[in-house]
C-alpha cells in the first residue's frame, strides 16, 4: 500500500467564507463608510476620535444586521459583541500610537548636536533651543541607576532565592510583602527617604538619596521576576547537584543561578526600565541640579526625568520643546531596555 501513488485531495478549509459569500460583507463595508461620513457631517462628532466613534457605531449596526439576516438572532448578538470588543481593543491602542508619534515629531525639533554634550548649568529652560543640553541629566540618571541596581539586585535575588531555594519560614509573608511593596506609589518612596534621611538632619539633597528611593521601587520588580525565573529551573537540576554531594549554597551558586543567568539579567533590566523614568521620588531627594555632577554623595544631582519636569513646569514654548526633546531621549532609553528584556526572554525559550 505504501508503494502505490495515492491520489489524495488537497487540504481545504471549507469553514472559511468563499468569495461568493463575501458579497454581503463588501456591501456592508460600503454602507459603513457612507454611514460614518454621514454621521460625522451632520452631528457634533469631530476629529479622529469622533470619526472612530461613528465608524464603530456603523460597523456594529451593519455587521449585526448582516449576521442576523443570514443566521438569526444569536449570530446577530455575536456579531454585535465582536464588533464592540474589537473597537474597544483598537481604542486601547490609540494612545500608544499618538504618544509615539508626538514624541517623535516634537522631540526631534528640540535636538541639536550640543544637546548631549552641554548641561543646563549656564542656561535656563526658557532659553532658545540651541543653548544648553541634558548632559547633566544623562550623567545623573546613569549614576543613580547604577547605585540603585547595586543595592536592589542583590536584595531582590536574595529574596527570590529565599522563596524558591530555601523556602523557609515566613515565605508566604515575604512573598505577600514583596507584592505589597510593588504597589507603593513612587511619591511615597521619595517622601520616605526625605523623612528618614533628609528632614531635620541638615543633610542636603544628593544623588545617593535619589538612588535609594529608586532602589525601593526597583526591588519588588527584580524580586518577582527573579522568583518566576528561578521557579522555571527544573527540580532535577537541583537534585543532581545535591546528589553529587554539593552543599546547598554551592548548588545554588554553581548550578541554579548560572542556569537562570539570562532570566536574572532580564529581571535586572526590567527593574531598570521601571525606575529609569521615575520622577516623583527624585523631586524629594535629589534637588534637580543643572550642572553636571559626578559625585553622588555631594550636592544636588540632575536626572532626565527631573530635567523634563523642570521644563514642563516652566510653561514657555522653548521649555516645552525642550521637554519633548528630553523625553524622546528617555523614551529611546526605555525602549532599548524593554526590547533587550524581551529578546533575552525569548532567547531563553
Amino acid at each position: 500500500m505504501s508503494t502505490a501513488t495515492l491520489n489524495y485531495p488537497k487540504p481545504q478549509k471549507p469553514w472559511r467564507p468563499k468569495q461568493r459569500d463575501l458579497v454581503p460583507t463588501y456591501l456592508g463595508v460600503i454602507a459603513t463608510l457612507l454611514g460614518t461620513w454621514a454621521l460625522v457631517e451632520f452631528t457634533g462628532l469631530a476629529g479622529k476620535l469622533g470619526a472612530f466613534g461613528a465608524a464603530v457605531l456603523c460597523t456594529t449596526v451593519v455587521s449585526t444586521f448582516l449576521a442576523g439576516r443570514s443566521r438569526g438572532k444569536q449570530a446577530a448578538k455575536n456579531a454585535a459583541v465582536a464588533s464592540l470588543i474589537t473597537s474597544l481593543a483598537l481604542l486601547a491602542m490609540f494612545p500608544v500610537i499618538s504618544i509615539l508619534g508626538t514624541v517623535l515629531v516634537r522631540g526631534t525639533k528640540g535636538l541639536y548636536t550640543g544637546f548631549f554634550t552641554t548641561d543646563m548649568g549656564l542656561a535656563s529652560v526658557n532659553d532658545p533651543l540651541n543653548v544648553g543640553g541634558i548632559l547633566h541629566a544623562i550623567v545623573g540618571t546613569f549614576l543613580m541607576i547604577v547605585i540603585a541596581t547595586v543595592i536592589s539586585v542583590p536584595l531582590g535575588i536574595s529574596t527570590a532565592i529565599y522563596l524558591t531555594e530555601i523556602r523557609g519560614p515566613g515565605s508566604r509573608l515575604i512573598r505577600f510583602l514583596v507584592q505589597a511593596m510593588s504597589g507603593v506609589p513612587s511619591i511615597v518612596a521619595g517622601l520616605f527617604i526625605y523623612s528618614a534621611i533628609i528632614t531635620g538632619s541638615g543633610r542636603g539633597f544628593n544623588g545617593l538619596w535619589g538612588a535609594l528611593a529608586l532602589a525601593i521601587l526597583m526591588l519588588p520588580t527584580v524580586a518577582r521576576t527573579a522568583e518566576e525565573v528561578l521557579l522555571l529551573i527544573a527540580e532535577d537540576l537541583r537534585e543532581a547537584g545535591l546528589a553529587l554531594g554539593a552543599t546547598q549554597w554551592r548548588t545554588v551558586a554553581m548550578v541554579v543561578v548560572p542556569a537562570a543567568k539570562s532570566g536574572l539579567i532580564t529581571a535586572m533590566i526590567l527593574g531598570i526600565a521601571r525606575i529609569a523614568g521615575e520622577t516623583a521620588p527624585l523631586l524629594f531627594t535629589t534637588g534637580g541640579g543643572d550642572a553636571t555632577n559626578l559625585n553622588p554623595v555631594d550636592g544636588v544631582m540632575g536626572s532626565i526625568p527631573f530635567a523634563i519636569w523642570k521644563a514642563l513646569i516652566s510653561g514657555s514654548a522653548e521649555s516645552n520643546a525642550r521637554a519633548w526633546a528630553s523625553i524622546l531621549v528617555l523614551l529611546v532609553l526605555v525602549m532599548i531596555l524593554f526590547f533587550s528584556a524581551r529578546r533575552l526572554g525569548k532567547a531563553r525559550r
Partner: protein
Amino acid sequence: MAEKQIPAPRTITTKPRTSDKIFRGVIFAGALSSLVILAAIAIFLGLRGFEILAREGLSFVTGYEWFSSINSDGTAGEDPSVYGIGAMLIGTIVTALIAVAIGVPIAIAAALYLNFYSPNAIKGFLVGVIDLMAAFPSILFGLWGFNILMPSGEYWAKLLHKYLGWIPLFDVSTPFFSRSPFIAGLVLAIMIIPIVTSIAREVFSQTPLDRIQAAYALGATKWTMIRAVVLPFGYSGVVGGAMLGLGRAMGETVAVFTVLNIIFQANFQILLGAGGNVASLIILKFGEASAEEIKALMAAGLMLFLLTLLVNMLADLLVNRTVKQGR
C-alpha cells in the same frame, strides 16, 4: 496470632554545614529587606507627621481646609494653621474611580480580543504594543496629557455636558472645563489600561480548554461561550486586576499634576476643573513649605501609603485566587 508491630517513624535530622548556615543567614537577611523597608516607610512617615496628626486628629482626614500660617522663614502668622486633606482624599478617590470606570472595560475588551478574537498573525505584535505602553514613564503621560489630550478632552467634556448635563455628575456650577477630575481620570485610565489588560489576559488564558470546548459542542457562539465559561472563571482575577489599576491610579503623581487643578473643595462634578488629589497636593506644597507644613505633608504621604497598601493587598488576594488555583 501475634499482631505485627508497626514501628513508629524515625525522626531524621540534618545538621547543615557551616557554609550553608552562613548562606541561609545571608539570604534570609536579604529577603527580610522587604519587611524592613515597608515597616520603615510606615514608621518614619508616621513619626514625622505625628505631631500634625495628633493635633488635627480625625479632621486631618475629614477636614477640607489646608492653611499653613507659618511663613517659610519660620515666623508664625496670625491665624492658626489647619491641615485637612479631606478634599484631596475625595479627589484621589474620584479620579481613580473615573480611571477605573473608563479603563477597566476597555482593558477587559482588549484582553478578550487578544485571547479570542485577534488573528494569530498579529496577536504577538499587539501584545507587545500593550506591554510597551506599560513601560512608558509616567512623566511621558503627564507631558502628552497636558499638550495633546487636554484640548481634546475638554472638547469631549463640553460635548458630554451639552447632551448629558442634566445628570448631576456631568453638571458644572461654572463653565470651567479645564483641568478637571474627568481629564485627570482620562489620563489615568490610559495609564492603567496596559496593566489591567495584562492581568486579564493571563487570567482568561487559563480558562480550562475542555470547558470552552464543551460550550462550543453544545452549539454556543463565541459570545455565549465567553459569557458562560470565560467570564465566570476569570471574574475574581479580573476584579483583582481592576483593583491593582485602582491602586496605581491613586498613587500617580506626575501624570496628573499638570492636568489637575487644586482647589480645596470636595468636587463631585467631574467635568468641572476643581478638586485635586493627595499626591498632587504634596508636590504642590513641598517646594515652599515650612518645617511644620512639611510634617503635615508627611502625614498626608502616610495616608496615601496606607490607602494604596490596603487596595493593593486586596487586589493581590483576588488575583492569586484565580491565577494560581484555576477554579
